[in-house]
């Protein structure tokens, strides 16, 4: 090392930073590309020229304009939002709980949302806003319950996970009871449980988008805290972090992101678990790079899956969740095997 750069990150770590910046730029490009494809491709066979004209002339009454402004743009936007929110939420939860098998489901998000939607439908309210609102509130309420249970013990990582399992089991029992007693609620909430983007609209998206953007922005300012927490409670404490408080705050933010996504996309369980793994294997575990990369990767992953779900048997649609498993599963296995080859 030369005297001039004696006390700065050396050339190897600078090149790692450059590599991370390139990967983030590449994932941003992939997101833009997948969004353009998602807007251009569809069952109605509109040409890119027609779509471009509809885009620059603003919302109108032509077929192209209606499809673009009321179907494809909201849907693409929804895919990006849901992917970014679930991937970041999953990353935060995995880091905070130091558990690579954790996902938004583990802190009760899906169970809470499922119960709230079932209850909402059982009460006879099938309106989209009611389902969106109740699912978000249900997700948050379940997470608060998990956090309170953990706090009443000692807020350690294990008690959060165990509390999550226990609360989820209780909530699912109530949900099952409701859908057994009210079969109509079971039918109405079935779409929600599978997850997908066929019924998104701007009204459902906007409040969720505000929550998702602000949640990810706050998390991006707390990436050092996230990394310090992953050193273990003792070390983090000794470094001056209020571990229990930060953990609860992070879990609340993660629940807010996942809850916002669930409110318009239903339960997409796979993304929050597997995209963080993919992202970590590609860009490493440094949260400062990982969080933005995860948001971009999650967004493009769901967008691509949704394109396939729409196009594979067009004009019939498959649920996006199924495609996610078909594409993501093998890709993940490939990543695992590739890593093994590298480590003799």
């Amino acid at each position: 090392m030369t005297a001039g750069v004696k006390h700065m990150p050396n050339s190897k770590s600078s090149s790692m930073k450059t590599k991370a910046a390139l990967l983030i730029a590449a994932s941003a490009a992939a997101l833009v590309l997948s969004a353009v494809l998602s807007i251009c491709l569809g069952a109605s066979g509109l040409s890119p020229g027609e779509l471009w004209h509809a885009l620059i002339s603003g919302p109108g009454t032509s077929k192209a304009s209606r499809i673009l402004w009321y179907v494809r743009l909201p849907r693409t936007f929804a895919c990006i939002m849901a992917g970014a929110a679930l991937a970041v939420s999953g990353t935060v939860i995995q880091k905070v709980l130091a558990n690579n098998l954790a996902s938004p489901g583990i802190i009760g998000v899906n169970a809470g949302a499922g119960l709230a939607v079932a209850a909402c439908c059982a009460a006879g309210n099938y309106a989209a806003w009611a389902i969106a609102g109740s699912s978000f509130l249900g997700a948050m309420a379940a997470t608060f319950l998990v956090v309170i249970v953990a706090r009443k013990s000692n807020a350690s990582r294990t008690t959060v996970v165990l509390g999550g399992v226990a609360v989820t089991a209780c909530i699912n029992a109530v949900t099952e009871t409701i859908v057994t007693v009210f079969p109509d609620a079971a039918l109405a909430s079935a779409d929600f449980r599978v997850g997908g983007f066929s019924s998104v609209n701007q009204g459902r998206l906007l409040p969720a988008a505000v929550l998702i953007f602000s949640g990810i922005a706050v998390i991006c300012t707390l990436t050092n805290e996230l990394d310090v927490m992953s050193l273990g409670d003792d070390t983090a404490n000794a470094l001056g972090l209020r571990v229990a408080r930060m953990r609860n705050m992070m879990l609340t933010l993660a629940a807010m992101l996942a809850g916002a996504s669930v409110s318009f996309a239903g339960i997409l369980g796979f993304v929050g678990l597997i995209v963080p793994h993919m992202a970590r294997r590609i860009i490493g575990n440094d949260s400062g790079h990982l969080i933005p990369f995860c948001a971009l990767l999650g967004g493009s992953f769901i967008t691509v899956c949704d394109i396939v779900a729409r196009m594979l048997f067009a004009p019939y649609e498959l649920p996006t969740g199924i495609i996610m498993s078909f594409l993501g599963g093998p890709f993940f296995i490939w990543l695992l095997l590739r890593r093994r080859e590298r480590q003799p």
Partner: protein
Amino acid sequence: MAPAQEKGEAAMISVRGLHASYGGSEILHGIDADFPEGRITVIIGPNGCGKSTTLRSMVRMVPEVSGQIMIDGADLLSMEPQKAAQRVAYLPQNRNVPDITVERLVLHGRFPYLSYPRRYRREDWDMVTRSLQQVGLDDLRSSRMESLSGGQQQKAYLAMVLAQDTEAVLMDEPTTFLDIKNQLDMMDRARSLAEDGKTVIMILHDFESVLHYADHVILMKDGRILLASDAETVLRSQEIRDAFGVRPCFYETEDGLHCYVKK
């Protein structure tokens, strides 16, 4: 009881009437101790006697604590966690092996100094480089923690503690899991920390290391201090036989006094 302390030495950390409990059961029953500046103080005692709890109380990791812990006249227990972490560093016994690079780990030693806009500054990076050079790990700064040997991981954690730049360094059994060469290296580094004026407090089990490296020894049993004095006095005392149920034996070579243990 008032612990023995060499005359004229400033007590950087002083503990008075320290009681500590976990879940209602009291582990420490009123500890009074002084930890002098620029010295290695070693806490010894049988398993479960409250050694780790004493250290953990100093870094406020025990939920139920009463008494007083002063650092250079300031009350450590009522200090903001971030301020406390700028004064006392702690190397726990059980540590994660995080999936990050060595330099990133060491950089987190600067976490107590982070302020708005929550980004590490040039002087933090400077400190990382100095700390890595001090422990001889500068060549491996870009390596992943997982790829290092146990001894190297310990050095990386030590560099993190150095980067924290505190007046006091607490180490809970820092030589456990290390091979003999790395144990000696670790203890030599602790010695040089003390020579730099830091208050070094550590828990050790090996009497030979205690004899060789400790300036001041605190013997604990059942949550109380039995004896506090220099290493030879403590190791030759009746109290140590009572505490451990063993008999330390001594022999001299040209290097000085050595100790081994008989049942």
